[in-house]
C-alpha cells in the first residue's frame, strides 16, 4: 500500500529508476536510483510519507562513489533504498535540513569516505580524531602505523 503511494509520488520527480523491490531477497520494497541534485526532493517526499531515515552510507566503487539512503516507516512495513551515483571529487547536497538524523550520518560518511555534502552546517570529522588525514573506508586506503 504505502510502497505503491511512495512509488507514485516519486515517479513525478522523473528519477532514473523507481521500481518495486524483491523483499524476500533484498529486504527492499521500493528501489530508487537518482542523480545527486534530486536527493533533497526525494527526502522531502519520504518525510511527507512519514518515513524515517534508517541509514545513510556510501560505497567506494573504485571509479566512482555511490551514496546509499535507506528509509523505513513506523506505521507500515515499507523499506525504500535510494542509490545515488556520485563522480569522485563532486559534492552531494545535504539532506540534514529535512532529516536532522542525516547530520551525523553525513559527517560519518565525510569522515570515512571523504565525500563532501554541500550545504551541511557542521561538516567535520565525527569518528576519527580531528587531525586525521585519511579516509579509511576507501578501497585504496593502506594504514601506516
Amino acid at each position: 500500500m504505502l510502497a505503491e503511494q511512495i512509488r507514485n509520488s516519486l515517479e513525478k520527480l522523473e528519477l532514473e529508476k523507481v521500481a518495486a523491490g524483491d523483499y524476500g531477497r533484498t529486504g527492499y520494497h521500493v528501489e530508487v536510483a537518482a542523480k545527486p541534485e534530486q536527493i533533497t526532493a526525494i527526502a522531502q517526499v519520504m518525510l511527507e510519507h512519514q518515513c524515517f531515515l534508517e541509514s545513510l552510507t556510501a560505497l567506494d566503487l573504485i571509479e566512482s562513489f555511490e551514496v546509499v539512503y535507506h528509509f523505513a516507516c513506523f506505521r507500515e512495513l515499507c523499506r525504500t533504498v535510494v542509490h545515488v551515483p556520485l563522480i569522485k571529487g563532486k559534492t552531494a547536497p545535504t539532506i540534514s535540513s529535512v532529516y536532522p538524523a542525516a547530520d551525523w550520518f553525513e559527517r560519518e560518511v565525510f569522515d570515512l569516505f571523504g565525500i563532501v555534502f554541500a550545504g551541511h552546517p557542521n561538516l567535520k570529522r565525527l569518528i576519527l580524531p580531528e587531525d586525521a588525514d585519511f579516509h579509511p573506508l576507501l578501497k585504496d586506503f593502506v594504514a601506516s602505523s
Partner: protein
Amino acid sequence: MEKKTGEPLIHFGVLDEVLDLCRANSLWPLTFGLACCAIEMMAAGAARFDLDRFGAGVFRPSPRQSDVMIVAGTISRKMAPAIVRLYDQMAAPKWVIAMGNCAISGGPFYYEGQYAIVPGADLIIPVDVYVPGCPPRPEGLIEGILQLEEKITHRGRLRKFR
C-alpha cells in the same frame, strides 16, 4: 619523553612494608570502562563476585582518589591521550591492570592495516598485571587483583599475614 613509572616519590624504609600491606588490601580502582570488558568489571564488583572481599570494591570516579587503573577494553587512538592524562593525574604509588586481550595486545582487533587502535596498553603506560581473556571472566579479574597484591607486598598470597 621521560619514562613513566608508578613509584611513590618518598620512601620510608621499614615503614614502607607496613604501608604496602595497607595499600595492597585497600586498592581503589578507577571507574573507567572502555568496551566489553567494563561489563565484566562491573560484574566483578557486583553481587556474586563482590570485589569488596579483597578490599578492591571501592570504585572511584576520579583519578585523584584511585590507586589502580583497570584498562578494560580496546584503546582507540583517539582515546589514548586521555588515558595517559588519567594515568598522570593519579597519585603515586599507582598500578595498572591491563584487562582483556585488547588492552594486552589489541586482541581480535589487531591486524595488518588497522588504523584505529593502540595495540596494547603497555605502549602508552606501564602495566603491572595482564589479565587475558575476551573478555576475562570476573574470576580472572579477581586473580589479577590478587596477583597485584602479591606484587605490592613482595610476598606470596598465603604468607602475607605472617
